[in-house]
């Protein structure tokens, strides 16, 4: 007999990962780590997409998750480029050192 895992487990996993990602963005100072936390959020989304797909026997979500991956890759390239160009002017990646513009 095929053993099953209920949908809710996947959703709980995905939500937990998402919250970890959000908390990471809020508490970490290193720009690259913050960026990685955002990637965790996106992957949390992918998990639930695939879970819904399998659960409902659909395929849209799988396509969607590929799209998410593509976009995430594009974002990584742009993001790292921005961080590098900042690093050239001011050799730090600590987010708390960037507040020229405020109020």
């Amino acid at each position, binding site marked *: 007999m095929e053993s099953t895992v209920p949908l809710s487990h996947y959703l709980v996993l995905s939500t937990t990962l998402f919250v970890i990602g*959000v908390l990471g*963005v*809020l*508490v970490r*100072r290193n720009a690259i780590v*913050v960026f990685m936390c955002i990637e965790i959020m996106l992957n949390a989304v992918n998990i639930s997409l695939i879970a819904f797909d399998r659960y409902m026997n659909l395929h849209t979500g799988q396509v969607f998750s590929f799209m998410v991956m593509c976009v995430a890759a594009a974002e990584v390239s742009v993001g790292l480029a921005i961080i590098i160009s900042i690093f050239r002017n001011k050799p730090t990646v600590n*987010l*708390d050192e*960037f*507040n*020229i*513009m*405020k*109020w």
Partner: protein
Amino acid sequence: MFHLAFLVPLFPLIGSIVNGFFGLRIGKKAVGWVACGTVAFSFLVTLLMLGQLLFTPAEERLFEQTLFTWMAAGDFNAAFGFQIDPLSMVMMMVVTGVGFLIHVYSIGYMHDEYSYYRFFAYLNLFMFSMLLLVMGNNFLMMFIGWEGVGLCSYFLIGYYFEKKSACDAGTKAFVMNRVGDFAFLLAIMYIFYLFGTIDYTEVFHAAPEKLILGAEPVTIITLLLFVGATGKSAQIPLYTWLPDAMEGPTPVSALIHAATMVTAGVYMVVRCSVLFNMAPFSMSVVAFIGGGTAIFAATIGMTQFDIKRVLAYSTVSQIGYMFLACGVGAYTAAIFHLVTHAFFKACLFLGSGSVIHGLHGEQDMRKMGDLKKHQPVTYITFLISTLAIAGIFPLSGFFSKDEILYHALMDGNTILWGMGVTGALLTAFYMFRLVFMTFWGESRVDPHVHPHESPKVMTLPLVILAGLAAFGGLLGIPLVHGWHALHNWLEPVLHFDMASTLEHSKHLLHEVGRHAPHWEALLIEPEENIWIEISLMLLSLTVALTGIAGAYFCYVKKPGLPDELIKGQWGYDLVKNKYEVDEFYDATFVEPTIQGSLLLWKKGDAQGIDGAVNGVAQILGWCGQQARVVQSGFVRNYALFMVLGFIMLLFIMFF
């Protein structure tokens, strides 16, 4: 001829554009010609249309000209159109006529100004906006003009921007006007919501059938409209900007802050008379605010020493009279007083400008005196206008003010009537105080200044305006039925069928299963009683003369009597007995009033209302400070606030 209506506002617009863009290049003389010429053309076109309107049968005196559809969205339709009817005609005549005279006067008054062209560009732009306001055929057109005149008045108040006070006064005027505009815009929205249209003709036609007399919708609309009017027309509680607005050049005070713009609120109320007739509660509010303002501003006017500020408070007070008239349903009287007020107050302001011009910028009445021999023309015209505003027979103010008082009494409200009479007494007193301090008595002029009469270009408008102030009363001769030209003229616009409105309201109430209250009292027309009218005239004449006499005793017979009283210096010669009468009069009447009104001015005016304005600014500033803490510049803070916002939305969604 009516199809030329669009030319009336177009001319000043052209003038404003020419002067604004090419003013520096074409030279001062040309600027003056352009500014006055365009307004003169507007006046001529208006005259032509007046002629044609006179030859149109009374019930057909309504002409609408739609230039193009301004906005059409769904079933909503607003045209860029003009409406020529007796009411807008009266306003157009006042605006273009008095406006023209003031333009001419300005050529002389502003002659030495560096940015002469800028002044005339604004002034012409003001004329354009004001004409849109009175000529529009729907509420949005009125609103365009409404905002436009506000903006121009703001620019003109701040004209002498080197003075910080002028800048502040301009901003204050604008902010206070915005409060009124807010209410006005809401009223327009509400009218649109209820009627699906904002066209005057359609709204006023549908109102008696769609609205229930005295019910919430019509009361709310009229109250909102009235709040809008209090802002523009400087009534309690939004009046404090007007005295400060005197920082602007004097012709501006005459045109905008006396003759035309500030009376826009009265025009609006009269224009919406159908709606106000259906809202008795709003009517009482209008009447009491008007009456209250009339007295309140008059008492303050007695304590001022700046010649223009006295006139400013007087304007506030006189507009209060107009609202008092509106509130008791005497719309004709309101418009009548509006017209005569435009004449005599414009003359007074221009006269004060002539005095200031002659004294090289001195505005303090304590440094004037005995100017009548230096400035005879100014003195005579000023005196005529002062007699008119005080209500002396047979000058124009007598007729218009008396009509208001008569209607207030006939409306059955003695309190309102009492307010009016008290106001009349105070008006006569402070206006003659102004005349006596400025033109009579001993000269207190700075010896280095040599007063001189103003040039012809300034005195000629004064003479014409004084003539109008003297004879303007012929527009509305009381007593004899049918001689009241203004009343007959406005009748088609102001016509309101109370009986059928009541029927409709009863019907509407029955439909929702409610009983109509007893409205029969509303139908009773007060009987015209010629003897009451005559005795009232005599009374108000007596009141005015009393006021003048009071001023005479205080400021001519014994100048500085109030001061002496405080110092406790008593004479003992034969004249003393006479003085005892004066002192009695002074101690019982003048002293308490002056003290009381000083108190009112200091507490009510300066602290109460300015305090509220400043308070709002402080609260906003505080909010801004808090925003600084939030907008810290740190990315992670921003992310945190996004998450908090998310939690807030979640909370609202699920609980």
